[in-house]
């Protein structure tokens, strides 16, 4: 059972023609959508999700994973060239990347981004294959109380990391958990919150909620911005593609540091790629001899965060696959997709489904190679996509939403649900309630409830069971530490006159060219 035989199993699966095809399809679609204006990775995965349900499970997940990291690559390309970051992670890359582009060094910035992403991804893949199986082995000891505390930690982390009010984050998590209870209750079969409608007996499908909250809501929001929506120009300063030797030398250590930071943070619940690129950027700024260069085209400001977010994107699969606990909303989507395909993520997946597990990991590597091939020669082509006007794009997105949703159960009722979820999602955007924690709550809801009920059964109704079991206690202590950190940070920021708002203003200023 050493790592090499495992990887051999994996490459066997991932190099099969059908897996290769879906991997290529995934990274291409992902890059395509990452480059397109006005569609974030969550919306992208959501809209394409129904398509993958008509594909065999391993291939489907390989394709989804490809869409995910492909969209991250595409996102940073746009962020650098046009200063239009689609995600929080690429917003960091845009700071120095776009500055480089303005100096006519877009070529080196893009090439170094691709190379450092590739490096970060590759190292993280090795980490995943080394650490996932032992973690799965450890997790075999987990029983209901441990799982409950772990999920509580994940949910709280998701709420803590939202921008703005912490209470809103908690509220959205609770709302997600509540929506997750809709439908027939698993033990007694009592229908809950169905309002007498048979359509709701099976619960609200997370696909419907995702597409409504992220895809449709984004469409409406983009349309409502109207003239304020960015107009895209395809004028890209373009001198030479090849980075200088100095660029390479300056990038090496930051890439290594970024990879380390990303690999570590990616595993933590709630942290994910966005936070890790932010941390990597901050670290580089601190270790730099001359921090004032940052924001003005420092190559470390591009390569460190980029390697960090790609590393994190890979290691985020560790808890998702081995514990069944997704770290962020994208991983929650992956988890949901796995379950629809009948693959139950958890400690047993490594042993029971080695072809799937190692095949997926090997496909990460192949996907990264494909991205390298796709990105370097075709950067010019991706840029062209930006000139597609939104008035052509959004009807196409709507068609995909409608047909994709209908294809799930061939029930038009699902489309009405999407309309409802879309209106709710638009309201959340306007109220600046982030929908990602809701998604996490929705997907974990049945597991949280079942584990809570089993724990109470186990302890004969004594809630202190979560405190008396050591592993569970550790998770609870981590929760307390997290809450303490939030409270301390909020008191401090109030004392310092709202540092957070200053930082976000700075970001806004950056986004306006």
């Amino acid at each position, binding site marked *: 059972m050493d790592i090499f035989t495992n990887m051999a199993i994996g490459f066997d699966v991932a190099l099969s023609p059908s897996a290769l095809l879906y991997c290529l399809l995934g990274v291409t679609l992902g890059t395509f959508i990452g480059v397109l204006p006005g569609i974030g990775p969550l919306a992208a995965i959501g809209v394409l999700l129904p*398509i993958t349900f*008509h594909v065999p499970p391993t291939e489907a997940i390989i394709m989804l994973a490809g869409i995910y990291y492909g969209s991250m690559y595409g996102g940073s390309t746009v962020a650098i060239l046009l200063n239009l970051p689609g995600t929080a992670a690429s917003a960091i890359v845009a700071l120095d990347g776009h500055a480089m582009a303005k100096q006519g060094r877009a070529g080196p910035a893009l090439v170094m981004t691709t190379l450092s992403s590739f490096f970060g991804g590759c190292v993280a893949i090795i980490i995943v294959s080394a650490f996932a199986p032992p973690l799965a082995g450890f997790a075999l000891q987990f029983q209901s109380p441990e799982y409950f505390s772990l999920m509580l930690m994940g949910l709280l982390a998701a709420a803590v990391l939202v921008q*703005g*009010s912490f*209470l*809103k984050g*908690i*509220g959205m998590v*609770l*709302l997600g*958990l*509540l929506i997750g*209870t809709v439908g027939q*209750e698993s033990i*007694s079969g*009592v229908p*809950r*919150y169905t309002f007498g409608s048979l359509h709701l007996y099976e619960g609200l499908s997370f696909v419907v909620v995702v597409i409504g909250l992220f895809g*449709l809501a984004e*469409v*409406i929001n983009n*349309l*409502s911005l*109207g003239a304020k929506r960015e107009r895209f120009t395809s004028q890209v300063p373009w001198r030479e593609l090849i980075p200088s030797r100095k660029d390479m030398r300056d990038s090496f250590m930051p890439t290594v540091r970024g990879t380390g930071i990303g690999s570590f943070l990616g595993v933590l619940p709630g942290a994910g790629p966005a936070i890790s690129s932010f941390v990597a950027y901050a670290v580089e700024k601190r270790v730099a001899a001359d921090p004032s260069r940052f924001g003005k085209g420092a190559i470390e400001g591009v390569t460190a965060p980029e390697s960090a977010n790609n590393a994190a994107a890979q290691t985020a699969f560790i808890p998702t696959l081995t514990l069944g606990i997704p770290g962020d909303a994208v991983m929650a989507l992956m988890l949901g997709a796995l379950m629809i395909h009948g693959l139950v993520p958890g400690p047993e997946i490594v042993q029971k489904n080695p072809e799937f597990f190692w095949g997926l990991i090997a496909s990460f590597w192949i996907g990264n190679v494909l991205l390298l091939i796709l990105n370097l020669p075709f950067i010019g082509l991706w840029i062209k996509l930006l000139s597609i*006007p939104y*008035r*052509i794009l*959004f*009807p*196409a997105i*709507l*068609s*995909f*939403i*409608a*047909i994709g949703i*209908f*294809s799930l159960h*061939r029930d*038009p*009722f699902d*489309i009405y649900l*999407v*309309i409802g979820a*879309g*209106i709710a999602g*638009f309201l959340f955007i*306007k*109220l*600046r*309630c982030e929908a990602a924690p809701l998604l996490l709550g929705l997907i974990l809801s049945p597991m949280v*409830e079942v584990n*809570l*009920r089993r724990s*109470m*059964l186990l302890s004969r*109704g*004594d*809630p202190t069971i979560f405190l008396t079991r050591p592993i569970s206690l550790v998770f609870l202590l981590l929760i307390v530490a997290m809450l303490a950190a939030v409270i301390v940070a909020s008191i401090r920021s109030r004392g310092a006159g709202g540092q957070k*708002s200053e930082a976000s203003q700075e970001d806004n200023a950056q986004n306006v060219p």
Partner: protein
Amino acid sequence: MDASNDRDENLISAILFVAIGTAAMIIATDYPIGSLRRMGPGLFPLLLGGLLTAVGIGLAVQSLLRFSLPWSFLGLPALATLRAMFFVMLALAAFAVLIRPAGLFPATAIMVFISTRAEPGHGIVSALVLSFVLAVTTALIFVYGIGLPIRLWP
């Protein structure tokens, strides 16, 4: 983003949370609650509803503590937003109504045509062309490519 706007958003969110939380609790009392030892189907939602209400109240208190002004948020949303929302929803609803009786091709074409009305910029001809192109493309992708068992025509 000025502070008063931020507070209004929080207040509306708080009202939303309290309303949904309370409603969830009231409905949950219809389901068997059980005991802590043997939790019934009603206890978990009841708990969640209660927590959501509490969070909403907390959020409301937090935002009311910072001095109150008229709700800038509730200013009528721009006409363009309403128009976009109306046509996007109408387009999807039309698809839902038409897909069974009319099949994929007409349903998609009509949906796309309605959705182009969401924003000024499309002439009738370009909208018709786009509808046709997208209906053909999606039919190719979903029916011939993926092989979804959906009828194309009535």
